[in-house]
């Protein structure tokens, strides 16, 4: 274990635990501010979208909206399956199947 990596893991562990523990220990009577909670509910949506968009829209590092972008097509297929089933396994399987198929059969990136 390199010291810089140990430092990183310790820092990540600390901030992760703080975010999980803070409101459990601070909020004694569930009087969570309604206005703040309306703002906070956007955070997971914003972060998930931020992580998804570049992997699907720019897999080679630049914006690629062409139908030859296999990640984009797999993303659309996954979103469709997720919308219908809400099932993690089915969604992941559909996306990976589309990617593998396009690569194996058509040789797309």
């Amino acid at each position, binding site marked *: 274990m390199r010291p810089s990596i140990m430092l990183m893991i310790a820092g990540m562990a600390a901030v992760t635990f703080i975010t999980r523990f803070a409101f459990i220990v601070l909020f004694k009577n*569930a009087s*969570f501010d309604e206005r703040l909670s309306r703002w906070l509910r956007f955070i997971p949506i914003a972060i998930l979208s931020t992580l998804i968009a570049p992997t699907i829209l720019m897999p080679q590092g630049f914006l690629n909206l062409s139908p030859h972008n296999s990640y984009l097509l797999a993303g659309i297929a996954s979103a469709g399956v997720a919308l219908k089933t809400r099932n993690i396994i089915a969604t992941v399987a559909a996306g990976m199947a589309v990617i593998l198929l396009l690569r194996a059969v058509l040789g797309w990136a």
Partner: protein
Amino acid sequence: MNEEPGLMKIDGDDHTALQSNRGDFIAAVRQAVPLMVGLVPFGLAYGIMARQAGLSWLESYTMSLLVFAGAAQFTAVSMLGAGGVQVGLIVFTTLLINLRHLLMGASLAPYLQRLNVRWQALLAFGMVDESYALTITRFTTVGASHLYQLGANLALYLAWTTLSGVGAALGSLIKNPLQWGLDFAMPATFIVLLIPQLKSWKEVLVCVAAGALAVAGMTYLPGKWYIIFAALTATIIGGGVEELCGRQ
């Protein structure tokens, strides 16, 4: 662990209450099984990605043992893989990614107030998206049970850490996981976590804004700053729209 005296205090001295709590633990583990299976590609892909980002097996596994936060760990190893990223930026990004846990903790807080602080800390450590989803559903429908939450947490913790370890062991063997389509497991999992949250046009607006800002940010900003830039800006856009439109 189940015999800890603190537990008796929570449940009173009623023997049946304690027994039903043990049943809750088993029920939680059972209900967690589909989510554990869902973690398989995710956990393996993390381990493989961590090794390809240059982490050793022990470093990859230790991160899962101590951090236990899938999205943050994926982001950290992809930042490491890109190179030239400072530790402080990775820790700060982890904080931002995990800010969503504040809200989860707040919604669970009223159910956990009767526990002592050690139990609260133990349950908080294991609170991930999947175990939170199981726990809050159980608490609001069947009733609060700290052993149910412990069971859900523990099941997902064991699955995540084991799969990470296996993935990291395979990581040095698999030269190019992209060929296996495994690199798509992460965005696909994020998609299935995201879709149910898009309940109204405001959530859809935040999603589209974050995606567009992420693409722009990745093009024009150095390193991984686009994550912080896009996520914060999109959250502020959502909050601003909420304020303007009133509280429907």
